[in-house]
């Protein structure tokens, strides 16, 4: 479970996160929906212990992201669409590198790698060097290395960015699979269809604050809108 309370973070004079609260439960996909620059990525970076918040708290399974960073990292898998890979290493070497960093034993690592290759359907690419991989193939490697330690909580930052239709559908299938395994999933995105198709709960973020929080139907009925897009516009305004 992920709990964020009164989170704030500034970079110099720029206030990236002004006041964000939300809770993401196990077995659910929670979507952070907001325009570019709303503070979604900064929030995820605080949760993944890359950045330290200026105020408020971010907790993963009741562990504080600032004070218990190492314990948090053990329970968290972070997938960012923009994250790069090492072009001279194979997909398997990526999974093994991260597995070893997580302290997994070699035998367990081999089993885990085989399981991930099954789940993500990457047997044909597992022993190829990643230079020249398609966006979809790179994303699979990215997910495999982030989940090598079988974390209960998964953060995905714009996971379908740059993917074609087929790869996007496959990606959604993978995320739903994680949810069905009982994991706590937080997806940050600015794509409305993604939220509608995927998320159990939606947190709308604008200008570093939470504009609304609820299930899809709750948001639609609260705003009297027919689609999530209309609900989003009525909540954050056209000018955002």
């Amino acid at each position, binding site marked *: 479970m992920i709990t964020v309370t009164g989170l704030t973070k500034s970079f110099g004079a720029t206030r990236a996160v002004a006041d964000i609260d939300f809770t993401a439960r196990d077995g659910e996909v929670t979507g952070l929906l907001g325009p570019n620059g709303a503070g979604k990525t900064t929030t995820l*970076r605080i949760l*993944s*212990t*890359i*950045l*330290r918040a200026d105020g408020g708290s971010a907790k993963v399974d009741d562990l504080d992201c600032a004070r218990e960073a*190492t*314990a948090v*990292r*053990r329970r*968290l898998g*972070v997938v*960012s669409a*923009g*994250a*790069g*890979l*090492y*072009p*001279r*290493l194979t997909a398997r*070497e990526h999974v093994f*590198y*991260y597995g*070893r*960093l*997580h*302290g997994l034993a070699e035998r367990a690592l081999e089993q885990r790698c085989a399981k991930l290759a099954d789940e993500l359907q990457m047997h044909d690419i597992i022993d190829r060097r990643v230079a020249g991989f398609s966006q979809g193939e790179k994303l699979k490697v*990215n997910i495999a*290395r*982030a989940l090598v330690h079988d974390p209960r909580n998964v953060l995905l930052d714009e996971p379908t960015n740059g993917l074609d239709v087929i790869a996007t559908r496959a990606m959604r299938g993978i995320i739903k699979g994680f949810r069905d395994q009982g994991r706590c999933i937080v997806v940050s995105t600015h794509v409305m269809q993604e939220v509608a198709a995927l998320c159990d709960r939606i947190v709308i973020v604008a200008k570093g604050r939470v504009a609304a929080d609820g299930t899809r139907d709750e948001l639609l009925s609260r705003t009297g809108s027919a689609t999530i897009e209309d609900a989003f516009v009525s909540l954050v305004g056209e000018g955002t």
Partner: protein
Amino acid sequence: MKALLVVLVKELRDNLRDRRTLFVAMLLPLFTPMTVGLVLVWNLHEQIERYDSPLTVPVEGKSRLIENALIQAGCVLVPLEEGQTSYDVAVRIDPEIEAKLREAKPAEVEIIFDSGKQDSSRAASRVRAALDGLARTLGTVRLIERGVSPQILAPFAIAEHDLATPESRMAFLFAGVPFTLIMLAFMGGLYVAIDTTAGERERNSFEALMTSPVPRAAVAFGKLFAVTLFAWLALVVSAVGLVALPHVLPERALDVPLKLDPLTVLASVVLLVPLTCLASALQTLVAASAKGFKDAQATLTYVVLVPMVPAMMQIMVQPAPRAQLMWIPAFAEQIIIDQWLRNQSVAPGLVALTLCSTTVSALVLAWLVARRYGDERTFLP
């Protein structure tokens, strides 16, 4: 410690697959032994040319005495053709020389050469030496014939003892070997330093690495050791090349006062271990502050120049090892290796001072690298 090893092994595997890194670590280091070998072979060739090989000398005019003197000095005499210019040195003998010699009148022998050409100057001095010798002998004979001691013309004897003779020819080697070894300590890991920090950030892979549950210092030191190992690999390749030289060069080429035995070369490489750590830490620190691969490459070009300044000073001033100088990293190592190559010992205290000073500097820089890795600006795109 385990995390450090995981990072180290990954960086070694990753960079061993990079052609640029391999070129710098495995091929560039061969430049030192190859240059040393070329200079030694060239030096041998020059000596053979100077003293042993026959020298063709076109001659105009006739004089049995002079011709004999030249033939004894290894010259092959041919007639000088009208308008001929294709020679290193030619000799024009006074047509009346035999008569003038008999009458003890001054005669002229002209040496024609081009002082702008090294080969020509060298040939001319060989001819001049032969003619000087003959002139001295003839003068001595004349004085004795007149009952005068030849010593009267020599109020004092000049005994030349040129300390620089063999060494000066070898000056390039004495300056070049330590200099290129120190440059290698700074060059060997350069690409690895860039790839593991600025490259990692440019690829956007740093952030994912930093979400793994290992101390950031372990990541920093794992990368730092990888850079150091590549720099040291470059030095070892170079050292193996230097030690192999006696086996590939003609025997006489190594008849020079340059001490290149395995022990001296090994000692030099061991002496440079702290310097490779220092160079790697400095490069990692600079690369970690750069915006990307190209920015790091541009900045690090200047960092590589840093050890060149004291190195040039060493070559020009040639200071003896002393405590006031031995705390300066790179400079001190160069002085010591220079001395060792000249087969001169350096006080163990001074070697220890150098090792300590460079190690402390390397540790300070490594600490700064670890601190830099604690800063989020290092790994955010």
